[in-house]
């Protein structure tokens, strides 16, 4: 109960801070929490928000699914074929260290301004993390379990399917969660820059028209959307990993 009270207090404190920021003359652009809420309702009602969300989710789904479908097997292969893994991880580490946003102009030049571009950007943002987590999951397999399975006569295929893969699953799923959060990040940066599409466009348009309450509302909506998507993924993860202590 005390925990709930504390969390509630911090939420109230946040709203109060926001309200104060809106009143202070320095940031005259700041809409109040209430104005934001009203704008959110209006945007939902007019359908603009949902249309933008649909467009955004298209790019997101395309890019993220591609990242999982390519990234997880790649990471698994890297973990099993040690030599290949050692070399490949250098490239992936570079991609992770690189501020991926820097690649956006290049992608736009190559693919034009389209949903495909956004999807590619989402892919580049999330795939390296998904791959490295799958790789790490395979590498972290307890040698003892492999040894045990060998004493019972397990073949290579059985070793991979019954020991390595289940053992790597927690890290693979965590990687997907991380990848999804990165995917949203990439999506939003891409759309803020590309502008003709989705939630990013809505944010930039609202800003350029000085409709700051609409802009804030869209930002809040985006954060809620990404939070919800991640929560769903976390739920799935929890279900699949019920055996954990």
């Amino acid at each position, binding site marked *: 109960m005390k925990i709930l009270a504390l969390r509630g207090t911090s939420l109230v404190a946040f709203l109060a801070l926001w309200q104060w920021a809106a009143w202070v003359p320095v940031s005259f652009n700041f809409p109040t929490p209430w104005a934001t809420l009203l704008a959110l309702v209006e945007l939902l009602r007019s359908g603009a928000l949902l249309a933008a969300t649909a467009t955004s989710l298209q790019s997101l789904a395309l890019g993220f699914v591609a990242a999982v479908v390519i990234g997880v097997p790649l990471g698994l292969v890297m973990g099993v074929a040690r030599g290949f893994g050692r070399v490949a991880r250098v490239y992936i580490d570079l991609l992770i260290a690189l501020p991926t946003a820097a690649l956006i102009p290049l992608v736009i030049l190559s693919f034009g301004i389209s949903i495909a571009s956004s999807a590619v950007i989402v892919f580049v943002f999330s795939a390296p993390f998904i791959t490295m987590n799958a790789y790490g999951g395979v590498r972290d397999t307890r040698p*003892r*379990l492999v*040894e*045990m*399975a*060998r*004493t*019972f*006569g*397990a073949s290579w295929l*059985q070793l991979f399917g*019954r*020991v390595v893969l*289940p*053992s790597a*699953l927690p890290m693979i799923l965590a990687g997907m969660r991380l990848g999804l959060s990165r995917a949203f990040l990439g999506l939003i940066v891409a759309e803020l820059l590309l502008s003709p599409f989705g939630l990013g466009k809505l944010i930039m348009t609202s800003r350029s028209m000085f409709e700051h309450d609409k802009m804030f509302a869209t930002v809040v909506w985006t954060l809620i959307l990404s939070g919800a998507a991640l929560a769903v993924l976390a739920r799935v993860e929890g279900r699949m*990993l*019920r*055996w*954990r*202590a």
Partner: protein
Amino acid sequence: MARLMAAPVGIAMQAVSKNFGAVQALVGIDIEVKAGEFLSLIGPSGCGKTTLLKCIAGLLPVDAGRIVIGSRSVSGPGGREASLVFQDFALLPWATARENAEFGLRLRGVPAAERAEAARRALAKVGLAGSFEQAYPAQLSGGMQQRVGLARALAVNPQVLLMDEPFASIDEQTRRILQDDLLRMWSEERKTVVLVTHSMEEAIYLSDRVVVLSPRPGKVHRVLDVPLPRPREARDVRASGEFARLVDELWQILKRMQ
């Protein structure tokens, strides 16, 4: 319960040597384990007792000599005659107790209904029947986890049981209970058992013979007979003078090797 049991077989280790690069782990090991015998391997740290056990299991290839289990020469892991019990239990954390007990059978392609039945029987034999079947390792105590490990080893119906310090990670009270349960199970189904241990008490309490290995490079230093009457779990063997004398004799042998 009347069931076809695999008759135990003996193990012959003939002039076995094993080295890791420049390090000689084992040299000229000659040991005959009789069928149905309970034999312990003991020795100071680094004497190679676990290495020898892994060689018997086929996990490590020998560099000289050979190991024969029954009539078959050991050439790799996964042989049908022997199964292993591990010090850290080696249970699959994502599988229930029953699924873990079934693991060896599953790898051999035994159909689901049959292996579930065999696993249940094995779990009952080690005292884990009923609701424990559905528990995950994380929900079980160390002692219970090792029982699952033992059930898994028994479910594949081996003729030889190889145990690598199976009770070392378990508290002493539970350890004594598990030792008695092991003896009870062993007297019902005579298997050949080779047990690696650090504990002199455990070696004397459980075994027919104790093989003492010397510090690296490991050689057979002494073989001690343990003529204590069986069943030992039924009487207060530990309180007897004969037990204390044997433990002390073993200690003297080990002490002089340091």
